[in-house]
């Protein structure tokens, strides 16, 4: 049965439009100024140019930092999502007595300020005498992203109908088969959302990165240090590219989820 929809009065539509404008106007300005000939981002726009994008492409430090950000982001997605899914399903299914404790423990990294997290990780890596490198950055980012994955998957699991799994168990399926063939596919949209959030968190993370990196820079670190003392619209160009990539990824995710839903609906 289709869900009831709110009546869309013109006032409601106007309100929505205003909220969206408030949220996106700064982004539009950032993109606009990335094409500005003037070094200072104020109106009136003096002229249009692709100079900043050209400078960005020729900037070797930027390319290295961008590559590092992608490497760290990709690895963080895999690690944080794997750990988060495992933790969420485990807590949901098997740990009724410890559920509250484990839930709270999993949310702790979200509540600790990143500065403290970064310094704590640095001290920890010192104690175990680990070499700082992109691997330690990935570890730090996974800790930051883990609670979000955990909460997203937990939320999805709460609305989960266990009867399909019980039916499969009655028919003799092993736990692993149930997990891989039933749970994971049904969780797929949530896992996708969690993965995207992990990537975004990792891509934007600067404080924890600063303390856990060895001699590699990531993109946010580079931008952060440029902001303080020397800035050109190259930063606007970087931001525009980031926005485009995020939009593309969000679009892909939405298409995938819709496709999955129509396939599921069609099969019912």
């Amino acid at each position, binding site marked *: 049965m289709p869900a009831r929809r709110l009546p869309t009065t013109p006032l409601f539509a106007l309100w929505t439009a205003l909220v969206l404008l408030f949220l996106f106007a700064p982004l539009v300005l950032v993109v606009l100024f990335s094409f500005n000939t*003037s*070094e*200072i*981002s*104020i*109106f009136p726009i003096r002229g249009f140019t692709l100079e900043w994008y050209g400078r960005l492409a020729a*900037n*070797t*430090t930027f390319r290295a930092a961008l590559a*590092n950000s992608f*490497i*760290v982001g*990709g*690895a963080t997605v*895999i*690690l944080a999502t794997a750990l988060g899914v495992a933790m969420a399903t485990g807590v949901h299914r098997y740990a009724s007595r410890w559920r509250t404790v484990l839930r709270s423990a999993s949310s702790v990294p979200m509540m600790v300020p990143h500065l403290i997290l970064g*310094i704590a990780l*640095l*001290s920890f*890596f*010192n104690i175990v005498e680990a*070499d*700082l*490198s*992109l*691997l330690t950055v*990935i570890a730090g980012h996974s800790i930051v992203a883990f609670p979000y994955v955990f909460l997203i998957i937990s939320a999805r699991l709460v609305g989960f109908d266990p009867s*399909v799994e019980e039916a499969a168990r009655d028919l003799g399926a092993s736990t692993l088969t149930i997990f891989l*063939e*039933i749970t994971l*596919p*049904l969780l*797929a949209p949530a896992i*996708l959302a969690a993965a995207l959030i992990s990537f975004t968190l990792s891509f934007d993370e600067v404080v924890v990165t*600063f*303390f856990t*990196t*060895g*001699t*590699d*820079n990531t993109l946010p*670190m*580079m931008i*952060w*240090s*440029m*902001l*303080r*003392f*020397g*800035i050109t619209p190259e930063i606007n160009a970087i931001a525009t590219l980031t926005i485009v990539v995020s939009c593309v990824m969000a679009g*892909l995710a939405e*298409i*995938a989820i819709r*496709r*999955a839903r129509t*396939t*599921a609906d069609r*099969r019912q």
Partner: protein
Amino acid sequence: MTERIDLNLLLPAGMSRRGALRALGAAGLGAAAMAGGAGRAWAQDRTLNYFTWSAWGEGPFVEDAKKKVSIDLKPTFYSSSDEMIAKLRGGGTKLYDMIVPVQNYIAPAAKAGLIEPLDPASLPNAKTLFPEFAAMPQWSVDGKLYGAPFVWGANAIAFNRKETGDVDSLNILFDPKYKGRLAMRDEPEDSLGVGALKLGIKQPYAMEEKELQEVKKLLISQKPLLRAYWKNVADVQNMLASGEVVAAWTFLAVIAPLRKAGVDAGWVWPKEGAIGWSESITPVKGTSKLKLVQEYANFTLSPEYGEFMARTTRYAPASKAAVDRLEPALVADLGIDPKNVSRLAFKEIPKDKSRWNEIWNEVKAA
């Protein structure tokens, strides 16, 4: 019948979900291994791990070092001296060979065992420095030399000449005529220093509690006149360019872009004094490449490096030989007036830094 949700859009043609998961896993491990391997410094002879402000570590400087002295720089960036000290204290000394501290962090860093002294004999180019910088006391601790500055600057007043006419005093930042059109830096080192200079206190960084309270009163009375306390240089640049602000306490770096944007921007060291800083290459404690660090430090003091740096970043070299290579117009633009260096109150760590932070927060909250 098993229900399956296909995410085939994201899978390459013909690959099953399992195959895709396996490939992703392998790619992730591969990437992580590669990252770890690449991070471990492959012991090349002439590589230096350089912990620095982004200004000194970007592409042009790395290429310049490679070309002129065959040194491979591997820069990692920080954006404040406090961040740098925090990282070094947390164990970062193992990672880096050299840092670029501001002179006021030398004493605390030396006391905390984070840096090593340089051998003055290994810095022949130091002879070309302006005498004021060659003999600056803050670079030596207990008789050991920890750095020779290659760059220096003053934080002072940038103003919009069309609106304010010529400026020569700190009074403009406290002038009610420009209410709502002034800006100060959100940094106690600078702003409390400015307050002290305005009150005529000769040694801002040795202020006692009584003087701190007077400065606090002064700054609180200044608050209604200010448009903002700026943190990023882009903010103050934009405010000056758009006319929101007509005078601000800021870095020299904002002047050139403002002039290019058509603003008649003026720069002055007020007669009460300005706040000075200088930076140098300093070896990190425990570096295995001390000789190479000294070689690079000597290179930064050379006239070639000074000229290159001045033209690329528009900061003033501390080397007289470098300044002699620049056109007089550029020299004036860079605010190089070594005769007046004695007017600068060079930054020092105040006796009680946390008290300065507290007072600054009280000013902001008032």
